[in-house]
C-alpha cells in the first residue's frame, strides 16, 4: 500500500525549533515526528510513502534516505513549487498514488495519535464509499473541521469547517484513506480538501467516518506539542511501561534517552522527555518539558512547560515556565527568570523575561 504525508512548508508555528530543522525531523518524545508516522504506516503494510513538501531541505532528504534503508520502505518526494493546499498535492503525486490501483492513506504531518492504519484500511474495505476519514472527539471543536455522520454506518452527512455554532464535537483528525477514484476530483491547483472536496463527497454519500480510539493531538505549535507529549507518555505508560524511566526523584511519566545523564537530588516529572546526550545537573526540577538532544540544564534550575532546543545551555538557578521555547544553541545565563519567552537560535540571554515575548 501507499501513503501520502502532507508535510507542507516552513512550519512557522513551531518556530524557533523549525528554524533549525524541518518540522518532520523535530523529535517528539525522542523520535522524529516523521518517524512515528513512517513506523506506524510500515506496520500497517505500507511499502511506499510519498512526502508532499513545498519546502525541501538537505536535512529532510538525508533523513529520508536513512529511513528508507532502516525501515525497508520506498520514500518518494513530491515537491510543490507553489503551495497546493491540502488537496492539490494529491494531484501532483497522482501518478505515484494511482499506480497499482489500491486505496492509499493520506495524513497531515502534524498529527500524533495511536495510528489506526490497519483498522482504517479494513473499515474502508467494508463500505462502498470513495473515502474514509478518521474522526476524534474534542472539547473545543470550533477550531477544526467538524463532522456529522450516521451513527451506525459512519456515512458522513455533513462536513463543516470551523463552525461558529456547535454542530458536533467530532472533528477531522487529519488521517484518511482514499480509493484512487478520488484523484478525478482534484486538479493541480491550490485546493483545500476540507472545504472543496469533502463537502461534495459527503453530499454524494461517498465519505465515511471512523472514530479514533485513544489520544490525538495536532502538535504544530509549542503548547500543543507539550500537551501531545503528555498524552503520548500516558499511552506509553499503558502499553509499554518498561520504556519509561523510573528511580529516585522520578515522578509520573518520564522518558529518558539512555545516553542522557541526570544528577543528584533532581526531581524529574511528571511528563518529561529528555533527549540523547542531555546533561541535567544536581538539584534540578523539571515538569512537563521536552529537552532536546545535547542540551545542558545546570544545577538548581526549575523548568515547567518548556521546550529546550538542541545543544542549549541553561544556567544555574534559572526558572523557566509558561511554554518558554528555546531554539537551537541558546545560552541562558545564571539566575534568570524566563516566562513564556520564545528565543531564536544561537541567542545568549542575559536578562530575565518576566512577561511572554519573542527574543530575536
Amino acid at each position, binding site marked *: 500500500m501507499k501513503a501520502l504525508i502532507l508535510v507542507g512548508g516552513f512550519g512557522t508555528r513551531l518556530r524557533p525549533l523549525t528554524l533549525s530543522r524541518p518540522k518532520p525531523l523535530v523529535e517528539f518524545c525522542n523520535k522524529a515526528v516523521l518517524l512515528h508516522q513512517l513506523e506506524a504506516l510500515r506496520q500497517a503494510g505500507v511499502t511506499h510513502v510519498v512526502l508532499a513538501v513545498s519546502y525541501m531541505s538537505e536535512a529532510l532528504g538525508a533523513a529520508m534516505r536513512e529511513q528508507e534503508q532502516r525501515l525497508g520502505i520506498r520514500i518518494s518526494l513530491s515537491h510543490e513549487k507553489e503551495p497546493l493546499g491540502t488537496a492539490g498535492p494529491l494531484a501532483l503525486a497522482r501518478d505515484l498514488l494511482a499506480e497499482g490501483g489500491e486505496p492509499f492513506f493520506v495524513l497531515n504531518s502534524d498529527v500524533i495519535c495511536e495510528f489506526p492504519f490497519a483498522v482504517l484500511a479494513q473499515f474502508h474495505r467494508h463500505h462502498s464509499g470513495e473515502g474514509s476519514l478518521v474522526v476524534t472527539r474534542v472539547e473545543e471543536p470550533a477550531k477544526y473541521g467538524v463532522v456529522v455522520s450516521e451513527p451506525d454506518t459512519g456515512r458522513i452527512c455533513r462536513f463543516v469547517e470551523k463552525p461558529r455554532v456547535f454542530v458536533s464535537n467530532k472533528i477531522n483528525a487529519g488521517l484518511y484513506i482514499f480509493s484512487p477514484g478520488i484523484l478525478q476530483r482534484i486538479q493541480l491547483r491550490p485546493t483545500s480538501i476540507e472545504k472543496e472536496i469533502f463537502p461534495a463527497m459527503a453530499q454524494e454519500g461517498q465519505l465515511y467516518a471512523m472514530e479514533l480510539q485513544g489520544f490525538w493531538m495536532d502538535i504544530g505549535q509549542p503548547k500543543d506539542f507539550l500537551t501531545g507529549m503528555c498524552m503520548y507518555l500516558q499511552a506509553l505508560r499503558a502499553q509499554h511501561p518498561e520504556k519509561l524511566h523510573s528511580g529516585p526523584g522520578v515522578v509520573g511519566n518520564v522518558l529518558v534517552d539512555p545516553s542522557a545523564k541526570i544528577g543528584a*537530588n533532581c526531581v524529574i516529572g511528571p511528563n518529561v522527555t529528555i533527549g540523547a546526550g542531555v546533561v541535567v545537573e*544536581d*538539584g534540578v*526540577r523539571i515538569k512537563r518539558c521536552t529537552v532536546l538532544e545535547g542540551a545542558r540544564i545546570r*544545577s*538548581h534550575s*526549575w523548568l*515547567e512547560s518548556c521546550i529546550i532546543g538542541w545543544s542549549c545551555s541553561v544556567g*544555574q*538557578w534559572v*526558572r523557566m*515556565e509558561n511554554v518558554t521555547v528555546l531554539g537551537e544553541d541558546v545560552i541562558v545565563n545564571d*539566575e534568570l*527568570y524566563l516566562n513564556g519567552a520564545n528565543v531564536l537560535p544561537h541567542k545568549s540571554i542575559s536578562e530575565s523575561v*518576566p512577561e511572554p515575548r519573542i527574543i530575536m
Partner: protein
Amino acid sequence: MPLKAVILIGGPQKGTRFRPLSFEVPKPLFPVAGVPMVQHHIEACAKVPGMKEILLMGFYQPHEALSRFLVSAQQEFKIPIRYLQEYAALGTGGGIYHFRDQILSGGAEAFFVLNADVCSEFPLQEMLAFRQQHGDAHSFVILGTTANRTQALNYGCIVANADTQEVQHYVEKPSTFVSEIINCGIYLFTPAIFQHIGEVFQRNQQELVLSAIYASRLYLNQYSKSHPERLAQNKPGGPVIRGNVYIHPTASIDSTAVLGPNVSIGEGVTVGAGVRVRESIVLHGASLHDHTCVLNTIVGWDSTIGRWARVEGTPSDPNPNDPYAKIDSETLFRDGRLTPSITILGMSHLHPAPHSGASLRLTPHALSAGCSVTIPAEVVILNSIVLPHKELSRSYKNQIIL
C-alpha cells in the same frame, strides 16, 4: 573639646515609605548589614575623641526594644546614650531647640546632628577639622554630597563659595535647578545655633537612602575596610561567598549554598542545599529550603521559603553610570506597576533578648499569634510585598498581598 551627638530618629508617622517593614519594628532599629540601622551612627559618633554623650531624639513612645537597644549599645560602645522623646513631632529645629539644655549639659562646645535615615561613612572628624580650617568657633558645618541635576531637586540644595566653602544659599527641594550639592542630613553645630533656629531649615522629609538593601551594600562595603572580621570568608566545607556577605554566627548555611554579593544573614537563619542569595537581607529565624533563589529581597523574620521557589525584587540601585546618582524617590507604583524590592514579613512584635556581642537580637514576642510568611515550594514571587502572617499558595507578581 567636649562634644555631643544628636541622632534624629523620627517617629511612627514617619517612615511610611518603609512599610511594611516599619509595621514591625521602628525603622531606626531595622537591621542593615547585620546591625540595627542607627547603630552605625552610634558607632561613628562614639569613635570621635571628646564625644561625651549620644542623644537619640524622636517621638516614638517608650518601647521595650528601643530601651534594650540603648542599654546594650551603651555597654558596647562605652558611652552614655539617652533617648529624648519629643511630645509631638517638633521638626528638626524644634526638637533640638526643645532639648537644648540636655544637649548643652556638661559643657558641650559643639554637637553633631545626624539624621537616622542617612546611610553614610560619617566623616565626623573630618567635619571637625574642616571647621577649624575654614571657619571659626561659631561656624556651623553642613555635610553635602554631589547628586545629579535631576535628583538634586528632591533634596535640600546647597550653594557654597568655591574658595571659602561658605554656604551662600540653601533651598529645600527647589522646583528648578539650584545646585548639585545636596544636604546629607549631617551637621556640626555650636550652641549659637539655638539663636538661629527660627530661620533654619524645616525637617528634611526626604530620605536619602530609601532602600535598606542599598544601605546594607554600602555598610558591608565599609566593613571590608573598617571591620573585615564581620564579613564572611570562603572556607572549606562552608558556603561559597561572593563579595561582601554578613552571616550571623548562629545561622546555619549548607556548604553548597552560594551567597552574595551584598547579603546579610540574620540570627538563627537556615539556608539549605543549593540555595542562591544575592543582594538581599534575610532576617532572623527565616528558613530558605533547598535550591531556592532569593534576589533583591528582604526576607522577614521567621519566614519560610519552600524548595525551588524564586523570590525576586527589582534592584534599587542608582544609575551605575552616573557617579553622583542617588536612590530615586521611592514611588510605590510606576506606570501602574509595583516597583519596590520585595519585602516578605515575619512576626508582628519584637521582644528584645539579652544582649550578646555586637548584634542586637530581635526575637518574636511570646504573644504573637500565628506564624510568619510562608512561601510554598516551586512558586515565583516577583516584585511583591507580602504582609505578615501570610501563607501563600501560588505565584505572585507585582502585587501587594494583604
